Structure formats: C-alpha cells, structure tokens
C-alpha cells in the first residue's frame, strides 16, 4: 500500500514535467505554423510538424505512464480527460497532415487548441482515482475512445471552417499558402463526417454499455440528452449541406455552432449537470 502510494506520488511529479515539456514543444510548433502562414516560409510547416512530433513523445509518455500506474485508461479525472483528448486531436492532425500536406497549416489552430486543453488540465487536480465497478467494461473503452475521436475530428473540422472564414474575410495574399476556399469547405465537411460517425458510435457504445450495466439503453440523463441534441444538430447540418446546398460561409458558421455544442456536451456539462456521467468524470 505504502509502496503504491510512493509510486503514484513519484510518477505524478514526472508526469507534470513531461506534460509541460510537451506543451513547450506545442507552443513552439504553433509559433512556427503561424510564422509560416504569415511570412510564406517554405519549410516552416515541416519544422512545425517536427516540433509537434517532439511534443507528442513526452505527452504520450506521460499518458502511458499514468495508464500503467493507475491501471486504467485516462478517462476518469478532468486532468487526464483533457490531456488525452488533446493527445488524440494532435495524433489525428499528424496523420491527416501526412496524408494531405496542404492541410498542415491548420496546425496554426489545432495545436494551440490542444495545448490549451493540456494546460487547463494541468491547473486541475492531477491525483489518480480508482475505477468504479460499473466502469469495468469493454464498452466503456469503446464509448470513451470514440467520444475522444469525435472531439478530435470536430476540432479538425473547426480548424478548416475557421481557416475558411479567415481566408474568405481577409482576402489577403498571406492566406495563399492555405488551401483554396472550396477545398477548405470540403475538408471541413469531410472531418465533420468523421466526427459525426464517431459521435454516433460513441452514443451507440454508451447505450450498449448502459444496457449492460443498468438494464436501460437510454435514461434521458442530461448528458445523454445533450449528446442527442448535438447529434440531431449534426444531422441537420448534413441535410442542410446536401439538400439545401449550404456551402462556404453559412456552412462554416453552422459547423462552428455544432462544434461549440459538442465541446459543451463533452467538457462543460459533466461538471455542471447532475448526471451519471459526472459521477465518473470526477474532481
């Protein structure tokens, strides 16, 4: 018991340092991404990607270490939830930037969003918590993983939508390095599509898990209901885009609204609403 307490205490000290090292690299990457866009420096995006990779290494080490020490994934406390959500967003960004290098300028928005999440987490209580029995289910892993991936995809969609709005409004040559308006619009819809699918899987997995644990697949719990409202908003966005031809500015603004709603559901609501979810998303 004492040995375990010592291990936890020692690890917490290392973990905070690793997180701050990661944040340092992410800040540097953000500066380089922004510099690259505004001053048209050819290789800057590449350097920024390297810095992001350098940041993800200590960040991953911090999360993996925590996982091993506390013997469950990072989905219990605000501190670990924010950090793991930022991690998944950055990993998704790196994968997409490798596939579509032109999209790497979106790092200017994605990386600061991610490191702000980590920094916010670092100001919260980093203590570890044990897993309640009802959370010991494979469906929880599915539920949480897809919620995180949905958040990541939505941040990517938001980045594309914000870049679209900036480029459209400024009409400034400094934005020439970014993709065309049409491509940004298309990418924001594409990432929204990923987010929509992940959000759906998140709801489905949560529902199956709830059925397994409590014998009800839907309980109109505040977070469940907000999650449904967000899903309905996403559904409306998809219809407006496909059938009502909402493109460009209108689409970007609506998507930003959907993003705000999903972030509210994931991050803010568990802290303010009395819900089954807040019981687990603790301290």
């Amino acid at each position: 018991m004492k040995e375990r307490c010592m291990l936890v205490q020692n690890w917490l000290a290392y973990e905070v340092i690793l997180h701050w090292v990661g944040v340092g690299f992410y800040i540097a990457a953000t500066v380089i991404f922004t510099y690259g866009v505004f001053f048209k420096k050819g290789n800057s995006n590449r350097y920024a990607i390297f810095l992001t990779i350098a940041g993800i290494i200590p960040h991953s080490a911090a999360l993996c270490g925590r996982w091993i020490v506390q013997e469950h994934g990072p989905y219990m406390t605000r501190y670990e939830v924010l950090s793991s959500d930022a991690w998944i967003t950055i990993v998704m960004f790196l994968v997409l930037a490798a596939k579509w290098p032109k999209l790497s300028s979106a790092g200017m928005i994605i990386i600061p969003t991610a490191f702000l999440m980590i920094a916010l987490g670092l100001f919260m209580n980093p203590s570890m918590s044990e897993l309640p029995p009802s959370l010991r289910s494979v469906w929880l892993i599915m539920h949480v993983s897809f919620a995180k991936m949905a958040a990541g995809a939505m941040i990517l969609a938001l980045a594309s939508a914000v870049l679209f709005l900036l480029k459209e409004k400024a009409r400034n040559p400094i934005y020439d390095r970014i993709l065309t308006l049409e491509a940004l619009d298309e990418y924001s819809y594409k990432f929204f599509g990923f987010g929509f699918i992940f959000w759906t899987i998140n709801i489905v997995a949560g529902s199956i898990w709830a059925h397994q644990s409590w014998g009800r697949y839907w309980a109109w719990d505040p977070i469940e209901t907000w999650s449904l409202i967000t899903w309905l908003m996403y559904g409306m966005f998809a219809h407006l885009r496909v059938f009502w031809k909402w493109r460009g500015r209108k689409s970007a603004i609506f998507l930003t609204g959907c993003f705000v709603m999903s972030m509210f559901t994931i991050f803010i609501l568990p802290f303010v609403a009395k819900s089954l979810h807040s019981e687990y998303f603790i301290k």
Partner: protein
Amino acid sequence: MKNRIHRLLFSRSTALALTATIAALCLIGVNIPQLAEVSPQSYVLWREGHPVAAPVVEAFGFHRMYRSTIFLCSVILLIVVMSITLIRMTLSVQKRVSKNVVPFDDKFFKHFISFEAASISVKDTAIKKAGRLGYMAKKISPNVISFIKNSPGGWGTVVLHLGLIVVMISGLSSFLFQNRGFIQLLEKDTFFGNNPDFLVQEAGPLAKSFEPDVFISLQKCTPRYYPDGQISSLESRVIIGSPDKTPEPTIIGINEPYETGEIKIYQSTTFGYTVGMELKSDDEKILAFFSLNHPEKPHQPFTGLSDYPNSPYVISMELTPDPEQKPFKNINPIMKIEITEDHKIVYTGNIKPGDQINLGKKSLRFADIRRWSGFIIKNDISVVSIFIGFMITLMGLILIYFFPRREIYMSMEETYSGFLIKFGGVSLREKALFQEEFRYLTESIYLDEGTLYVGAELVSL
C-alpha cells in the same frame, strides 16, 4: 387538399423541421426538472421558485417531456415522414444506378472534359489509370464506359435512414411495453416474482402488470474495496429458478447480468446492511429488522434512525461493518447505538452481534446482521431491434462518409482524324475533392493518348 398533405409528407423541409422540433423539445426537457428523474420535493421547490413558468410547463407536460403528447407526436410524425422519404430515396437510387444512357455535354455533367485521341488504345489506358484510383470499369454501350468507385456508397443515405426508422420504432415500442422493476433482497431471503414486492417500478403505458416468472434467492452479497475505501466490485451469489427451469446457483455482478427467457436480472450498484434487533420482556420477544443507509463516502458508517415497533423506544444506529478492513480476517462489525425513550437517552454505546443491552424491565439484543443487495429485473423485447437499428444506422453513415460514390463516364466517337473522347463525372459528396481526382485522371490520360484538347483550358499537372 390530398396533394397538399402528400407534398407536406414528402417534403424534406418537414423532416428537418421535425428534427429541429425534437432537438428543441429535448433542450427544454433538459433544462426543466423531469418528474421521472427528480424527487417530488425538489420538483415542488422548483415550482415554487418559478411561479410564472410552472403553469406553462405543466400545461404542456414539459415536466415529463419524454412522455408528453407533443414529444411523442413529433417522434411518430418524424417516423412517418422518414418512412415515406425512404421509399422515395430507394426509388431514386435505383433509378440512378440503372441509368444507361447519359447525355454527354457540360450541361449534364458538372465535371466535363473532352479531347481528341489518335487511337482506340485510349480505352485501355483509361481503364488502367482509373483502376489504379480504385474505379471499376463497366461497358454501358459500344461507345460508352462507366467507371464507378465506392458503388455501395450510393445506398448510404437509404441504409442510414432505414436504421434510424428501426431505432425510433423500437424505442417507441420499448417505451410503450417495457417493464422494469427494482427489488431489495436480504441474504437468505427470496423474491417470488410478485408485483407488490418491487420497491420501484417503471412500466410502459401499454405494459401488462409485471410478474416475472422467476424466483431469486440471495445467498450472499459480496462487496470488495480498494485500499482507499472506494468500492471495487459488487457481486451476489443467488439461486435463480423459473417454472420451466430447474433452480441453479449463479453469480450476478455489475456488468454481468443474468438472462432467463425474456427476463434479464441486473446487479444494482446499491447494497447495504440490515440489522435484526430483538426486544425481550418477561412475556414476549419481538424481532425487528432495520435497513441502514449506505454512507456517501468510503470509511463512513452505515446509518439508521427508527422507532422500534410496538415500543416507546427510538433507536439511532451507526454500523461499521468491517472496522479493520484487512483481507483474510473475519469481519467484526461494531454498531454505535443510541436509544431514546420520551426524548431521553436511555442508552448509548458500542455493541457487537450477540450483545445485549439492559433497559430496565426489557432488554435489546443485537440478534442478526445481514447484507441486502439491489437487483433490477427487466423485460424489454425491443432492445435487440434497437441495437440492430443502431448497427444499420452506423453502416449507413460509414457508407456515406467513407465510401462516397463517384461515377465517371467516358464516350468515344470516331472522327476523320481519330476519336473524340469525352469524360463526364458525377459525385454526390466531396465535389471539390472529386474535381481534383477527375482532373488528375483525365489529364493524365490526355498526356498519354490525346492529340488535341477540345475542352476548356488545360490545367497543368
């Protein structure tokens, strides 16, 4: 009039408006205390705090939103509208897929390019290059070839909406017919499936009285703890039987329900202790059981305050079931007890099972201590169809977003100097990305086989 109703039901705007209505109703529901979720006292407090809003809320039934007429009507109407549009979608996809003849001009195709080629080998080059990009070639007529990518993707919208309809219909039938009950069972005690023995019940408006054909006998309830006192697992050893099944011992745990026929039994997260106190006098013995409240935080005692039946005593109890909390050691429960008679404390102290308290002419003995365990018993046959609906919905979404159907048509007309080649492309989604792919494909074919570019300006590769 008939046409108007018909048009209204066919309309996508109606479906969208209904979706927005349901979202708005959920938004209201989540901000108003729902009778099914809060205690009656806290609802009354809310009503007193909102004297203007409360009558409106109650008039529209917003305090039980998800059972209100307006909510259910919106859902039913959405199911009807979606079913009708689903038939329309199916017909239109079938029509699109079976389309054979396509007019080849830039009015029909948004993505259109034409050029001249010297030889018929352009056809093989096109099949090869399109194949590398994942397109399947199909000969439509002697002069027209279609290249199709992500063929099932065209059905995505149909599959998605079909899944949603299944989910909504199943959800509705679950709401109407489901039966769910909670029981509290003492160790060595048995539940025989009688309806009045349920502590709490949830039944759909069309559900019959819930009398499950099972009996459950609780042998032992075992909670386990982490070193910090938080609960790590809870399981109950039970014997379950039914008229068509011989009784069998089994273990029900959190996340490990037991299923027998249409009935499913879940371990609830609640458990506690019941203490038996025996009041003895010269001429009689009364044994009474008291259920104690579960503490809010670990390491705190289980508490209870109650009148002792048919006596002047009020007893306050604080039970610490396992003061040492050391594994491989027998637990030695200790209970702090305070007995009052006419508001005067007549006894206060700690007792162990078997201890006796002398109260003058009477005595009170700590006769028994048993755990109780909570179980949820449920009968809801529509759950399977809901999950099937979920899976269909998910499949539809994956088809739509991961397999956007793309079609490229190529026509060849013989001219005096060779062949006039025309390419037209169709994509329902990701049009800008398709445009890029279309240009890349057609221009690389032109660079290999073309002689004269007929279409608009050629974009450099």
